[in-house]
């Protein structure tokens, strides 16, 4: 290598290390700068292979990356490797290399730059990168945990069949989750505009729902709660319970009311049914305990008198008649009670229809009750043809109830008038009595077995008579009504359509 540089200060003291090696890495020439950087003398280095100056990691890198690349590209730039200083320290170096062919032989020329500062800088970069990656990992983990928690909550909400809604408080804009569509009777989720939701609330409840929300938004404290009905697109009416709470945002101010909707139709229905059952039990007990006690007391008293002493014929007959009459009343109460419970538990009244003539039915009832109440005047008028298909016994029962009421509430000195009238499309049976008119306040509930909403303890049986009358009329497709005033007295009438004609 006679033409190799040597002794030239530009080469020897260049601002970088300069090396010339054989293709296998054996060092042929090395400048002073490089020797100084590694703390070695030139004779130590010449004849050594370049890779022996590297750390173990560097040697493997040299074999697996440097050599193949240099071979392929014929040159390399800016490869950073650590070299071993004579004192054992490591000196990070950035190296450029190029392959030259001279006289058919391959040589490698290297320029080497000390890279301590760059190395430090890179280490800082690496640390920063590791920190950033750790932050990213933490962030991703918390995002993941958040997503899992959210998914869990969504699942729980879905499993409980709850539906989300919210109100943006400043402009009172509502937002409904697409799942709310299911509450409105849609078969799948879809966007529900607030206007549509409101329009689906049944008219009677719409005002109350809006009012409750407005009141809450005016003073958003505690929990919002309201129950209303919606009419679904499927035609089904549902009871909806709506809950909500103001949600503070990151800055602590509440901008949203967030809440859930729940279909409470079933529990609403169950509650109504439970109330009905409780009422039924109470009514039944009332009837048994109060109404039935009177005739039984009369029977008991009459039988005690009969047992005490020997009576004359007239007295004995009168007592016998009282026992019969009281037993009849008790029987009728029991029959009414059975009908009542059948009707109330939804099983309806038993009807056995035949062709009957209502004149005959009315006449028989009037005759029977005249016998039972010899002191009272009972009249019967018949008009037209009253033959129809009906349950004659039931019609007689209804008429009997009306007549009994007329006898009870009418003035004792006036007649009770029963009329049966055949009309073109119906048969009308009516019972009239004079006396105090019925309190107009009773009209809405007069045919109910008991008035709902009366304070507890004040419930008293008003008799099941009118309730049974109405049930019989309804079972025949007809209805019952009355007129009552001071001047003309009180008239109850049953209107039965001639369904068969």
């Amino acid at each position, binding site marked *: 290598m006679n033409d190799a540089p040597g002794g030239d200060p530009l080469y020897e003291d260049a601002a970088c290390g300069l090396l010339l090696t054989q*293709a*296998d*890495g054996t060092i042929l020439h090395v400048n002073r700068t490089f020797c100084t950087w590694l703390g070695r003398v030139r004779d130590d280095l010449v004849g050594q*292979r370049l*890779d022996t100056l590297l*750390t*173990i*990691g*560097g*040697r*493997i*890198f040299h*074999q*697996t*990356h440097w*050599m*193949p*690349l240099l*071979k*392929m*590209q*014929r*040159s*390399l*730039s*800016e*490869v*950073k*490797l*650590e070299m071993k200083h004579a004192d054992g320290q490591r000196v990070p170096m950035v190296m*450029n*290399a*190029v*392959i*030259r*062919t001279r006289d058919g032989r391959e040589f490698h020329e290297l320029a080497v730059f000390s890279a301590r500062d760059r190395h430090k800088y*890179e*280490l800082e*970069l*690496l640390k920063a*990168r590791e920190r950033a990656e750790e932050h990213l990992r933490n962030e991703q983990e918390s995002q993941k945990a958040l997503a899992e928690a959210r998914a869990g909550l969504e699942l729980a909400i879905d499993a409980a069949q709850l539906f989300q809604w919210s109100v943006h408080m400043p402009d009172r804009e509502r937002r409904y989750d697409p799942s709310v569509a299911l509450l409105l009777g849609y078969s799948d989720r879809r966007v529900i505009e607030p206007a549509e939701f409101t329009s689906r609330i049944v008219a009677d409840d719409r005002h109350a729902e809006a009012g409750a929300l407005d009141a809450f938004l005016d003073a958003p404290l505690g929990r919002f709660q309201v129950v209303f009905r919606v009419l679904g697109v499927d035609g089904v009416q549902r009871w909806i319970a709506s809950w909500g709470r103001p949600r503070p945002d990151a800055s602590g101010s509440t901008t949203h009311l967030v809440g859930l909707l729940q279909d409470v139709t079933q529990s609403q229905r169950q509650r109504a049914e439970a109330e009905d059952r409780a009422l039924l039990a109470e009514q039944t007990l009332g009837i048994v305990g109060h109404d039935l006690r009177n005739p039984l007391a009369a029977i008991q008293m009459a039988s005690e008198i009969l047992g005490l002493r020997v009576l004359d014929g007239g007295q004995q007959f009168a007592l016998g008649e009282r026992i019969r009459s009281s037993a009849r009343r008790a029987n009728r109460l029991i029959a009414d009670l059975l009908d009542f419970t059948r009707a109330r538990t939804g099983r309806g009244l038993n009807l056995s229809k035949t062709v009957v003539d209502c004149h005959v039915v009315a006449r028989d009832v009037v005759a029977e009750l005249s016998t039972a109440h010899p002191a009272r005047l009972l009249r019967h008028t018949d008009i037209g043809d009253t033959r129809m298909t009906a349950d004659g016994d039931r019609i007689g029962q209804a008429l009997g109830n009306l007549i009994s009421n007329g006898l009870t509430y009418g003035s004792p000195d006036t007649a009770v008038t029963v009329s049966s009238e055949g009309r073109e499309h119906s048969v009308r049976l009516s019972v009239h009595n004079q006396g105090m008119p019925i309190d107009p306040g009773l009209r809405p509930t007069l045919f109910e077995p008991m008035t709902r909403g009366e304070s507890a303890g004040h419930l008293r049986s008003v008799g099941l008579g009118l309730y049974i009358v109405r049930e019989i009329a309804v079972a025949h497709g007809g209805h019952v009504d009355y007129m009552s005033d001071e001047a003309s007295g009180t008239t109850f009438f049953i209107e039965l359509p001639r369904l068969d004609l």
Partner: protein
Amino acid sequence: MNITARNNVQVSGEQAITMVFAHGFGCDQNMWRLLAPSFEQRFRTLRFDHVGSGKSDLSAYDRSKYGSLHGYAQDINELLDEFVPGPAIFVGHSVSAMIGMLADLERPGRVIGHVMVGPSPCYVNDGDYVGGFEREDIDELLATLKSNYLGWSSNMAPVIMGAPDRPELGAELTNSFCQTDPEIAEHFARVTFLSDHRSELPRLHTPSLILQCSEDIIAPIVVGEYMHRVLPRSTLRIIDNVGHCPHLSAPSASAAAIDDFLHELT
């Protein structure tokens, strides 16, 4: 799964026997550019990049699958299923020689010969066994990989000079060759240099050529001799070469040795 894209598979030729070239730790299939053409007249050739290297699909890199050489061996068998209908000669450099062995043991009968270029069944010394490295050396290598993070990810482009020698390869090469995701490189290095498949060697009965360099710090000559002793049907050829890549630095001598082996084989 598209195996062609996953492993950047390149097949050429229509011959009956396929030579499958598998690169080792470091670069990619371009390592074979100087050697493979010697065989293209007589053999169909298949070159590919291991997942994580070269132009493979990095998204297919699954740390648990590639946590051992068996994951790579599984890929080899999938490559053989997909692209090699006939017999195969498996040419594996360095760690890929062991990957080829594992693939063969897993699904025997498809590889008729192994060409193992600079192989090592275990890089770490263990009792009487000399692998060339102490465990601390490997830890230091891994530490170097970590601290040279930025160096590893640089693309080590050619030097731009006033009057450069004409590069033998196109510029497109410089953008991917040897450029690896540093984390994958570190993982692959860990899996490679801590692997130990000495116990499988006696089970491989496929004829094998051990192509050993005279001076190789990664696979020293004692390792080649050990393999020759333990591998039942092996031939040991020592090439006069300094370094771990005889197919690059001594392609002619490497091709000649492989030719001799293939003549006996076919």
